[in-house]
């Protein structure tokens, strides 16, 4: 077995192992350390001799390391006696309980006491089964940074005394929102890379989709979970058409829609139906907007009036300047650039998106459509200066230059 084989088994097993060990020991940090020790041992021993049952080997080894760690803690001597008396506890995973434990693992990894970076790193590591190296590669940060975030996160959870359990009913919805926002942060990092020389990092977006699917399977009665999944699937469906052969971005209007992933669109639309059960929330509304694009054969045939209405609804349930800006773009498509420019001017007057390249990008486009060339060019050049993605910047500069 190669390193890649070990990683593959680990991807499938990590959440179950860490969840079961946390339940077993009551100590999330200890469970995570023990699981990491087991996978490190597997990386050494499996290439020499493959175990007959790799998943069972990992669980048994992780459990032994957890017991070793507890033995080292003399303060926990009583618990150790308890463990010795009941050695089969972890081998017999209760399928009903393990689902709740994996869910509890998601809640603890996305706990509000953690920084956003820590939540992202911890979720990818313990629920997604990614190594620190893989996370570092995905987020373009050094490996020690990721390791430090995870170490600190585990200390924070221990210091704050965060219990390993499902949040009480009263907090459940809000805490679930916290999990969804972590998954969405991971997805957007992959779908609109905020830095670096590539527009898309599909592998990062894939991790978010995979985790959203897991969450949807474990929380099937939560419409917003399906809303987030639908949004991710429908957005990712456009990935194959979003970049040209040289890696430069292709705008929605210019995309070859035959290249959209039909299978992903179908999955997204199916998730959207589940999201609509009790009226759409913020993720469901965004998914509905993505669905309106996914169902249209061209920009001209897109139901822009519906998209404007959906953005208005989104602006009410989840007000944000980015939503307002997107509403302006939809209004421009539905009713022309003049009313859209009014929305953008108001955003600028209130300074709602300071320093963002998106406002001058949209304003520049609208001014160009209104025939105000020199102003448009200045706006697009401003946008290029503010933009941190190399690929997007060069598109902005090309457009500015084309205005003469």
């Amino acid at each position: 077995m190669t390193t890649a084989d070990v990683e593959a088994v680990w991807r499938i097993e990590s959440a179950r192992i860490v969840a079961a060990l946390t339940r077993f020991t009551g100590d999330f940090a200890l469970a995570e350390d023990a699981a990491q020790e087991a996978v490190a041992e597997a990386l050494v021993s499996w290439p020499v001799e493959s175990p007959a049952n790799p998943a069972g080997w990992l669980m048994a080894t992780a459990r032994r390391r957890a017991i070793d760690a507890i033995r080292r803690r003399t303060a926990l001597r009583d618990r150790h006696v308890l463990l010795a008396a009941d050695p089969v506890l972890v081998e017999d995973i209760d399928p009903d309980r393990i689902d709740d434990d994996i869910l509890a693992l998601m809640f603890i990894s996305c706990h509000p006491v953690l920084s956003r970076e820590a939540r992202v790193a911890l979720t990818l590591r313990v629920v997604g089964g990614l190594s620190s190296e893989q996370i570092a590669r995905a987020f373009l940060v050094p490996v020690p940074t990721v390791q430090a975030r995870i170490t600190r996160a585990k200390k924070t959870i221990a210091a704050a005394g965060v219990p390993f359990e499902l949040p009480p009913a009263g907090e459940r919805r809000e805490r679930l929102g916290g999990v969804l926002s972590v998954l969405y942060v991971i997805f957007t990092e992959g779908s609109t890379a905020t830095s670096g020389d590539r527009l898309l990092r599909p592998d990062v977006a894939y991790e978010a989709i995979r985790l959203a699917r897991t969450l949807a399977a474990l929380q099937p009665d939560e419409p917003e979970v399906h809303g987030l999944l639908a949004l991710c699937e429908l957005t990712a469906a456009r990935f194959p058409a979003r970049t040209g052969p040289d890696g430069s971005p292709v705008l929605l209007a210019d995309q070859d829609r035959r290249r959209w992933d039909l299978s992903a669109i179908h999955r997204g639309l199916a998730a959207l139906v589940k999201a609509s059960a009790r009226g759409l929330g913020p993720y469901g509304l965004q998914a509905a907007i993505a669905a309106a694009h996914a169902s249209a054969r061209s920009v001209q045939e897109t139901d822009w009036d519906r998209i404007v209405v959906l953005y208005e609804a989104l602006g009410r349930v989840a007000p944000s300047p980015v939503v307002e800006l997107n509403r302006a773009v939809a209004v421009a498509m539905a009713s022309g650039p003049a009313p859209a420019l009014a929305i953008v001017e108001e955003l600028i007057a209130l300074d709602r998106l300071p320093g963002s390249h998106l406002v001058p990008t949209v304003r520049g486009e609208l001014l160009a459509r209104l025939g105000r060339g020199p102003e448009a060019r200045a706006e697009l050049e401003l946008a290029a200066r503010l933009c941190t993605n190399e690929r997007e910047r060069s598109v902005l500069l090309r457009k500015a230059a084309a205005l003469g």
Partner: protein
Amino acid sequence: MAKYMLIMRGTDASNAALMAGFEELAAQTYAYIEDLVKAGVFVAAEGLDDAARGVVVDFSGETPVVTDGPYGETKELFGGYFMLDVASKQEAVEWAKRIPSVTGSKIEVRRVAGDDELPEGIAAAAGAGSESNGRS
């Protein structure tokens, strides 16, 4: 990330064994699919009807010729598939190892090519073609 098709290939003997223990295998397969769903990798799964009830449309001649029954003298018949969305080939293989199966059956693991990929050989031929055009 890539989609993989796990193709189930059965022989007459393994198909007979499958039918003998069908109920148990079906229950195991549902549990397996549930695992795939919870792992976030499940895309689709379908099983095919008996190959004897199929037909083959053969394009060897000028017009397509339709014959009843299974394809040629094939020893292993395509009986169904799982479509997975996984991070690596190794992961697809690991899931393939866990498919509830009977002795003698085989699982073929094949990656689904992206729409921007040409099958191997064609890409090279296309490259060679443009080169010769350049010289002429």
